[in-house]
């Protein structure tokens, strides 16, 4: 990068958090928010206890129950499909209370998936560093936070010191130019990007999302975009804050108020990348002709337009990509050349930190209104947070889902990652989640990733379908 060039959003935010350089690559960073959930947080809290240390800054540590808690309506305090779930939930609850951390329990009205509620409650803020033992933490980049997933040892380090040694990433700018056609969403944008640059396309990079199609996305849509950064191997993804970000955050439970808000808002807006800032890599995606996307394989890069067909692995130049595609088709039990539209499904899932915010449920409800899920298809909706669920119920969205034949469940990570729930084992599922990895949603589960509208349309058709032809 030229010394005369302006600064990027990342340069500014990173610079504000460097306490000291540890070597020529790794800096010791100040961490503004640590989020722990019961799946890994229970281990982190236990390890800290065993070390004899105490949390450095309890007001900056938020703990929550989202990964293992059951989504069954009427669930109780330790109910889980995972054999160790009750133990991990109880341990997280007990240690959070004993340590004076900011704890959000399973029945708290603020409860939900960590990456959904961190922005929703204003726990996260633009230009803040936020870490969590979950690779989809980058979701929170949708409000212009620098948020990323870490391991349990890193989290223990943050808990004990409120700092983290971290190497500054290279920087990629992804421009989504043009205007999204009707019925095409943030999920389709990010799937198309991953299809274009591949699951390894972002290794070592942080991704800044920009362009007219990003500016005009809702803040919730921006979260969907940032959520899947890790699926092209970018640990960090973000949309620098703008007027829409401020409007989203103003009045949230943890957002600053009054003069403090004015000062914060002015600072946050100053973080946008300078016009002359330079990036290590530039990627551009034209959104004007973008179609809804559906995955056919076992990597998010195995994706085509819904109107497309399963590609022929022989058409791939790279031998390892060819091998992986062949293995994927074997696992997915699909043949090259098969059109995606019409592939029969056993289940449809709307949930996860990717696509279970209010705008997602509204989009699905638009498709489901007055229609019925095809007989024999299991259709499940797990709202991204309890506030999302309540807001949807206030609009009557729950009734549309239920009348169509969807289950309407309590908020949690649910069936995005199986986690002990075996109901999708050996089934073909179309899902609004983020990973179609082998075994991700259950043993031998064949997952097709898509947007909420595409999942809803497919649930009605009983096979992969184009929502634009159903509405």
């Amino acid at each position, binding site marked *: 990068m030229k010394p005369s060039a302006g600064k990027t959003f990342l340069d500014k935010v990173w610079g*504000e958090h460097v*306490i000291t350089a*540890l*070597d020529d*690559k*790794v800096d010791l960073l*100040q961490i503004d928010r640590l989020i722990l959930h019961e*799946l*890994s947080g229970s*281990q982190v809290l*236990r390890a800290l206890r065993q*070390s004899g*240390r105490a949390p450095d800054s309890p*007001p*900056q540590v938020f703990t929550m129950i989202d990964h293992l808690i059951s989504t069954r309506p009427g669930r109780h305090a330790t109910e889980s499909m*995972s*054999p*160790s779930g009750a*133990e*991990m939930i109880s*341990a997280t609850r007990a240690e959070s209370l004993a340590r004076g951390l900011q704890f959000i329990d399973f029945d708290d009205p*603020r409860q939900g998936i960590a990456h959904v*509620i961190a922005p929703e409650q*204003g726990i996260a*803020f633009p*230009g803040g560093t936020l870490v969590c033992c979950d*690779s989809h933490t980058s979701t929170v980049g949708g409000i212009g936070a620098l948020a990323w*997933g*870490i*391991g349990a*040892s*890193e989290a*223990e*380090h943050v808990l*004990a*010191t409120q700092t983290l*040694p971290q190497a500054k*990433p290279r920087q990629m700018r992804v421009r989504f130019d043009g205007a999204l056609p009707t019925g095409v969403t943030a999920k389709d944008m990010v799937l198309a990007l991953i299809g274009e640059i591949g*699951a*390894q396309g972002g*290794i*070592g990079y942080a991704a800044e999302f920009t362009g007219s199609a990003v500016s005009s996305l809702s803040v919730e849509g921006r979260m969907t975009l940032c959520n899947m950064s890790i699926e092209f191997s970018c640990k960090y993804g973000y949309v620098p804050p703008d007027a829409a970000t401020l409007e989203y955050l*103003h009045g*949230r*439970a943890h957002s600053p108020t009054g003069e*403090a808000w004015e*000062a914060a808002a002015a600072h946050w807006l100053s973080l946008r990348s300078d016009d002359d800032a330079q990036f290590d890599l530039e990627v551009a995606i034209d959104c004007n002709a973008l179609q809804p996307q559906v995955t056919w394989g076992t*990597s998010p890069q195995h994706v085509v337009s819904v109107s497309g067909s399963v590609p022929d692995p022989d058409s791939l130049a790279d031998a390892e*990509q060819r091998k*992986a595609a062949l*293995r994927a088709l074997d696992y997915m039990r699909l043949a090259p050349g098969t059109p995606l539209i019409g592939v029969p499904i056993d289940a449809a899932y709307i949930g996860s930190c990717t696509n279970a915010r209010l705008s997602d449920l509204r989009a699905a409800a638009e498709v489901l209104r007055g229609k019925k899920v095809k007989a024999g298809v299991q259709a499940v909706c797990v709202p991204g947070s309890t506030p999302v669920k309540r807001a949807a119920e206030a609009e009557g969205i729950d009734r549309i889902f239920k009348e169509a034949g969807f289950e309407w469940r309590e908020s949690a990570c649910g069936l995005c*990652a199986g*986690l*002990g729930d075996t109901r999708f084992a050996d089934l073909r599922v179309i899902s609004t989640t983020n*990973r179609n*990895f*082998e*075994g*991700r949603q259950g*043993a031998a589960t064949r997952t097709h990733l898509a947007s909420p509208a595409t999942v809803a349309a497919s649930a009605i058709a009983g096979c992969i379908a184009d929502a634009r032809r159903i509405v």
Partner: protein
Amino acid sequence: MEAFTKLTGVAAPLMQINIDTDQIIPTTFLGGTDAKGYGAHLFQERRFLADGSNNPDFILNQAPYDHAQVLLADRNFGCGSSRERAVWALREFGIQAVIAPSFGEIFFNNCWRNAVVPVVLPIEVVNQIADAVSRSGGQSRVTVDLEALTVTSEAGNHSFTAPPVFREMLLKGLDEIELTLSRGEVIRRFRGADQARRPWAYASNAAGSGKGS
């Protein structure tokens, strides 16, 4: 933490791209608040057949690879989920170094904290090492030297780089948290200035009501 300086051992070629942490340890086996007990489920879906018996086709079930201490893989090893159990499972199985052209970044960071060395070498080199190992039926050994930053095998002697601070930590078996706590004065000075500049980052308004509540 356990130190690592140099290792000579059996290397198992698992030459595939995008081996994600869900494959390394599936979500079904993430239970427990302990860092132990994950090795038994390393590569569960690939290592074992439906009846629980060993899958003879999977390399880590084949002698001498069932005693592998080094794993060879293609691009983006350990991508996906942040679960540190993926590293714990590898380490418990006996793997102390993974050699690949690139790694999932969270996995890469997790390795250093668990005495597993993630070695980045160009794919051509990893392929040469894998070929040499395979030709010998797994008998030829691979040496990973963190002090010298070299990998030595029948394919030759190859240098790699590592973040100096993580390398130092692992060579000496240092406790990373202690190291940071010893910088207390620098951290306090930083926070004094930062808190004046960004008060909202410290004083989270815990009023608890507003949009979204």
